[in-house]
């Protein structure tokens, strides 16, 4: 057990990495591949939970890869800020696997299952690696690992548009990570180090050089691309819409969140609050983009007829909320953003899972195909509605926790109009969720539509697990709020 505890940070990443090639070899036995992947994701979740416990008990953990002492060697670094993100990723991985069994069987060619799950594990591993590593270049590498795996996963969607969306994602993603690489290069020129903590210590000396400013610009833009900040979000809606359902669930819950975490790490921990917000006025750049990013995609979502696409646009809007919290440049705002990472992951995953249940039975989720579906799939739709309430931000759901903190943060900063704006845009979410409810509950099924049965248990249970989480953490908010609070304080404090 001691051995295990000691190597937790490495295991977090190594477990899925180790499992990926093994699963790849199981191409002939899809069920076995699934079982192995499930086992791995649950073990990974176990590691995350143990890490949470360790961090809460003993404070931050630093793990030296290969025994090399940082800043020379690569360091894995776990502190209250990234533990939340690790938990989100491994939780979502674990909970989407039981769901995957039947959903993937239906949507993905059987011969590809081994590769599919291997790629899924790699995506998982990449995301965990981005989060846990304390080395700037390593972030880039893990970004690419997870991205490459996601491109492959998205391209396995049934619709032919999946391939094209994957291509677009690839081009955009590559541009984004290359920007990241350029930014890292600039920082390396000026400081001679890649270790994030070391960077944080050395950067203040060279802060006023043009190179560092350029590095900052490249990093922020590059990461904004990965996190789908408006107007760099254009790759996201198609990618989420046409990917296999289970991948949509996983990516929507994790991919953009991790990118946001990296952004937070870089602007708060590495460059520091002073530099980012006082000298470079990052807040003034992020806030209008965040607000536009909430408003426009929300309106677009209202007019969508494909519900998966609608939710994808809603994801862009939700990213806007998170960035808005960041742009307040206060502990409270930051805390709202971090708690929304968790809340939105749970909520959106639940929503996409409910849609996946419907896709499983009906074959599609356009508004007209969902007409009257509530009678046939009452449990699925009930989950959708509850998670939808959370998306809107009704009290007693996790969505409200975010909304409340964002509002307080806006008012704390004296940003009156922003608070009004926040409340106004939550009505937009009401409208698009309403459209689905209206179709499902109040309309009659189209003529000649085949009646369908309720989704199978293996799909329903994970969906409801997340839905219940939406409600539970909306009532007993102590766990996410407390973790987010610690994360925000850690981030505001920088590495020093």
């Amino acid at each position, binding site marked *: 057990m001691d051995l295990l505890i000691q190597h937790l940070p490495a295991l977090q990443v190594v477990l899925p990495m180790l499992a990926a090639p093994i699963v790849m070899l199981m191409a002939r036995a899809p069920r076995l591949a699934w079982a192995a992947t499930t086992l791995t994701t649950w073990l990974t979740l176990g590691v995350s939970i143990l890490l949470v416990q360790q961090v809460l008990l003993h404070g931050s953990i630093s793990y030296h890869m290969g025994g090399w002492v940082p800043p020379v060697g690569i360091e894995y670094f776990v502190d209250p800020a990234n533990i939340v993100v690790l938990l989100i990723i491994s939780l979502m991985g674990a909970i989407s696997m039981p769901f995957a069994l039947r959903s993937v069987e239906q949507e993905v060619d059987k011969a590809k299952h081994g590769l599919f799950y291997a790629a899924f594990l790699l995506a998982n591993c990449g995301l965990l690696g981005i989060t846990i590593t304390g080395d700037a270049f390593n972030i880039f590498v893990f970004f690419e690992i997870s991205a490459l795996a996601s491109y492959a996963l998205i391209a396995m969607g049934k619709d032919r548009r999946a391939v094209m969306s994957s291509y677009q994602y690839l081009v955009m993603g590559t541009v984004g990570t290359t920007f990241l690489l350029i930014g890292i290069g600039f920082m390396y020129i000026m400081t001679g180090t890649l270790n994030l903590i070391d960077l944080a210590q050395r950067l203040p000396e060279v802060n006023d050089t043009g190179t560092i400013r350029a590095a900052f610009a490249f990093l922020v833009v590059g990461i904004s691309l990965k996190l789908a900040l408006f107007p760099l979000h254009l790759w996201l809606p198609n990618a989420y819409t046409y990917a296999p359902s289970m991948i949509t669930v996983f990516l929507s819950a994790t991919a953009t969140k991790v990118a946001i975490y990296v952004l937070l790490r870089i602007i708060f921990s590495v460059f520091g609050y002073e530099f980012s917000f006082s000298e470079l006025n990052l807040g003034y750049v992020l806030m209008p983009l965040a607000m536009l990013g909430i408003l426009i995609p929300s309106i677009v979502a209202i*007019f969508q007829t494909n519900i998966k696409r609608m939710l994808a646009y809603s994801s862009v809007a939700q990213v806007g909320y998170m960035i808005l919290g960041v742009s307040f440049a206060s502990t409270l705002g930051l805390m709202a953003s971090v708690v929304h990472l968790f809340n939105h992951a749970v909520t959106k995953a639940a929503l996409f899972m409910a849609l996946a249940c419907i896709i499983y039975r009906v074959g599609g989720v356009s508004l007209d195909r969902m007409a009257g579906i509530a009678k046939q799939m009452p449990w699925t739709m009930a989950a959708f509605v509850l998670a939808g309430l959370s998306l809107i931000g009704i009290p007693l759901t996790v969505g409200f926790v975010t909304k409340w903190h964002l509002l307080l943060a806006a008012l704390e900063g004296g940003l009156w109009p922003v608070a009004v704006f926040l409340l106004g845009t939550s009505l937009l979410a009401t409208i698009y969720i309403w459209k689905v409810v209206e179709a499902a509950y109040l309309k009659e099924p189209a003529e000649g539509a085949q009646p369908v049965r309720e989704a199978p248990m293996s799909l329903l249970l994970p969906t409801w697990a997340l839905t219940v989480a939406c409600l539970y953490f909306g009532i007993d908010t102590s766990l996410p709020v407390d973790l987010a609070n610690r994360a925000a304080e850690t981030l505001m404090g920088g590495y020093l």
Partner: protein
Amino acid sequence: MHELFSINWPGMDWLHPSLLLILGSLLIPVFRGAVQQVYRLTLAAAFMVAVFSTVPGVYASFQFLGMDMMMGRADQLSLVFAYVFAIMAMIGTIYALHVKDNVQHMAGFIYAGSAVGVTFAGDLLTLYVFWELMLLSSVWLIWRNRNPISFASGFRYLLVHAVSGVLLLAGIVLYYSQTGSLAFERIDVEGAAFWLILVGFMVNAAVPPLHAWLTDAYPEATVTGAVFLSAFTTKTAVYTLMRGFPETEVLIWMGAVMTIWGVTYAVLANNIRRLLAYHIVSQVGYMVAGIGLGTAMALNGSAAHAFAHILYKALLFMGAGAIIYMTGRAKLTQLGGLYRYMPLTFIFYMIAAFSISAFPLTSGFVSKTMILEAYAENQMAIIWLMLSLASAGTFLSVGLKLPWFAFMGKDSGLRTKEAPTNMLVAMGIAAFFCIYIGIRPEWLYQFLPFQPVEYNAYTMGHLLWELQLLLFVGLIFFLLLKYVGPKEKITIDTDWIYRKAAPRAVGFVHQHGTAAWHAFLAGLRWPLDRIVDAASRHHGPQGTLARTWPTGSMVLWVAVLLAASLLIYYL
């Protein structure tokens, strides 16, 4: 570690009646048939017991998001409302006993439970939660009428309240950030927080011009749902206004205007439930006016009037509902002569009608005169006059017009039976309370928030004034009726009341008011349509912002943003 995962569940020291009812209602679909009926009655009874056994005090305090919450604050003010809500839930349950619609029953219970939740809420956030829950549950009482009109008006209902919910929440957040406290006491801040919360409450209290949702939605609700609706939403708003905004001068005028406004439109209404719905606006006006005045007697009067009003208004809706249920018709012009076939309904209805018209020996008399008396004491003659005028209009429409054309008058050829027993029982209970309170007002007075209540409704002055008024109105009605003649084909919409009779002004207001309103709506509609058009042009599935962009343009955006941020950072 420990404190992070620990849970402290609220409400362990006291069984919150709302939670009991709301959670209990979730089991309704489990049962069927007679068992379910018994279960529903038991649940409503348990709810009543829980409410009536609550002793004043503070319960279920807990922490949420680092703020002090209080789910149970029971004092004289909240209890009087809780009592009547509990009675009402029982009556409503009996009235709806025969209905086979689980959604409606659950919605009704959750609705009633949330209303009590609002009254017991000691902090604004709990209040907000129950407030929204009320909305979300009550809308189903409208939708379950299952026709396109009820669907549309339910949707408008939802929309209006969603907006008011947002205003309320904005106000609460602002209040919290200004005072650092969420406790729901008198809202004692300046500026936006005050107005946002006030407007949020006023929407639910149906204060004109924010009242349209009520008269729009209630007539379209299910027969049994309307009974619930008439009782809870506006009266919880009255409670919150009473708690948060006593002695707010704007409410005096708002209330007075409400009474007249509601009555005016009620006189002109043809749909029986729309007529009654307008009367809710009018009656709530009395309470709002009382709150605005804010003296102990005025507030007592408002509370008493709310208590009485819930019972007689529900009885009116039950009577109207019985007619609709038995005949399938809701327009006065299509009804008539029903007293022969539904005598009990007729009697119960008339008791409620006398109550709302404040006949002596009915509940309305002992509560309404209290508000009037408060105004008289404070020498506010204009308001007093307005309230009295509205009182006359009330008798005219509810006490005379509706019964005359629905129950008496020309025989419409309808041959129907008496309403089902459970409906009659429910009406009987409500009627009993109307009379009982009228005869023994001290039973009601003991619940009022400001004790002791030193008020006697049965003074010679009150009696004379009230009877004079009622007789005079009755005289006018029958004189004019005779003048028109019983054979006259009655078309209330363009009817004789305002064309040939004294209140010409009413017609004037109606015509021009309606025209102006429609013009306003049309004017509003045009830019709205334009906005939606523009939005869908750019945001719709084919719009610039929603369609799939070529990869090149996406990357171009990256370049633009990079250039922009470089520029910003270098400057």
